[in-house]
């Protein structure tokens, strides 16, 4: 089986072939295939790679797998071969910042600091959302003009909700 794993900026093709109980041939990209002894349970993967012992905790996450290893955390997108091809066809290049300011967490809108037509600079606060008893200023990632404000004061918003859409200042 071939999977495409996206970790940070990298995208790696991984071939997985079970070769015995708790034993797999694993090939990452063009590197030589290796035999791995692994315990794979919901929540834990323990790997014996040569003399190295590596434990990775895994949790379900939107669009992939939350991983925790050696005190570090990462989110991996896991695609099977077909999904990877589809995604590649659609093109995956990301811009330098989003033209939509979103709230990462649910909360209550305390204040909208911009109006449609306002010019904003990167890092400028546009909306204050209160969550977990703290006010959090959400900021523009790019320079531009406010095209649309999606919320008003006292609105309850869900995590990942759009707050403000910007028209980029210049898209070269």
């Amino acid at each position, binding site marked *: 089986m071939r999977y495409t794993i996206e970790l940070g900026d990298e995208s790696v093709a991984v071939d997985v072939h079970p070769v015995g109980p708790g034993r797999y041939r694993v090939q990452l990209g063009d590197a030589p295939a290796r035999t*791995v002894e692994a315990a*794979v349970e919901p929540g834990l993967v323990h790997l014996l790679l040569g003399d190295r012992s590596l434990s990775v905790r895994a949790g379900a996450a939107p669009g*992939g797998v939350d991983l925790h290893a050696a005190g570090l955390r990462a989110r*991996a997108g896991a695609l099977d071969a077909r999904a990877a091809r589809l995604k590649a066809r659609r093109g995956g290049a990301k811009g330098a910042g989003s033209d939509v300011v979103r709230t990462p967490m649910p909360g209550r809108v305390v204040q909208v600091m911009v109006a449609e037509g306002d010019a904003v600079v990167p890092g400028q606060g546009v909306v204050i959302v209160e969550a977990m*008893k*703290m006010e*959090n200023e959400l900021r523009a990632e790019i320079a531009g003009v406010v095209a649309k404000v999606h919320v008003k004061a006292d609105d309850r918003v869900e995590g990942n909700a759009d707050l403000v859409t910007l028209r980029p200042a210049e898209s070269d």
Partner: protein
Amino acid sequence: MFERVLVANRGEIAVRVMRTLRDVGATPIAIYSEPDRHALHVRHADVAVCVGPEASAQSYLNMDAVLDAARRTGAQAIHPGYGFLSENATFARRVAEAGITWIGPPPSAIETMGSKLLARRTVEAAGVPVVPGVSEPVRDPDEALAIARGVGFPVMVKASAGGGGKGMRLVHDEAALSKALDAARREAAGAFGDDAVYVEKFVVEPHHVEIQVLCDAHGNAVYVGERECSVQRRHQKVVEECPSPFIDEDVRRAMGEVAVAAARACGYVGAGTVEFLVGGDKRFYFLEMNTRLQVEHPVTELVYGVDLVDAQLRIAAGQPLPFAQADLVPRGHALECRIYAEDPETYLPSPGAVTQLRWPEGPGVRVDAGIDGFSVVPMAYDPMVAKLCTWGSDRGQAIRRMRRALDETVVLGITTNVPLHHRVLTHPAFVAGRYDTGLLNTTLPAAAAADAGWKEAAIIAAALTRHAEDTARAARAPSAGAPGSAWLAQGRQRQITGG
């Protein structure tokens, strides 16, 4: 002692108080808001009463509902924890009027210390040094500006009824003052129902050091060492330690005696904390007194070998303090890392369902958690989900044990500030014990880069997890197993097939 005690709080502090209640043989009674009905603190109680919907004002801050719950369940006493109603003199009074013991100081002491201005006047009269340049609540931006110009920028805008960093803003220049006043007022109104704020001089390179005091109803009062709380983000404490690496034995004794004097000045009974600002010259100024248990109380417990909640219960039951000042001898060093459900870089909160959880174990580790692997962290309440403490025979061992404890900690599903703690605990200034409240504004060490081996491991783990899922889906024919097993086996569908 009490047989039934209601804990008027939620999260880790409710769980922590309930543990000591069990230790003294009392039945813990929980209250909960609707979305908290299956929260960990409710599961730690034998008896639990719903006090209202999600909004704190209608549930955890709803005095009528909390008192009704206490009456209905036959609670003999109420422990308020910290936050919520813990520093509300009206509530303390109503508890007493209902014939229930209030596990906290007398309402008059809460009132005196709850108003920062009255507190300052009271302790000043008792000869306690205070921060220069403070005054009455400001009425408008102009008055604030006049005060700020008087003491000189930078200044601190603070909520009169405040605490815990809420309603607090550091202002560097005149231009920023008006906006800061608005924000502080809004936060203060939301958090304390009182938007009064005042302006004081901001001491540069300050240390936040606080003294734990205990006073019984028989006139005995002791100080139980200090806590260094200078690692702060957004004016909220992140890492605390006992003893402070900054002060020495003489300063400790002087601060302790002043703290006891401050407590006596307001007729204090119970556990309380006197907070000081300490300058680079080791001169210290009274900041405020918190008339309740502090989040960071465990570091004191670890170093002084006392249970402060147990002491609170004894004092509330009218017993004399079980120890004298001379009995309180510090041993070793303790650290606390507050685990917040928030992004370690942006400090944005991260509520949600916990999908994987592991707390550290072993020598020198203490965990006080408000969540377990079955918890959902709601967005309506404080982001602190647990306290991680380590003890060591010296500061170095406590730090190294904390790094190990953080390495062992796994919380998935929500984002936590564990990586921030890693960076603090490897910061040269922190390791050297030479830091002030500005630490988190300085450049922290970069997060340890994952070496190639770990990155490879993460990629393989993701692929194997996906592969296991595909295999399990293919094999998902109804099993011939025993009834009840399939659902439960989902919690543990073993793939360890070797051996």
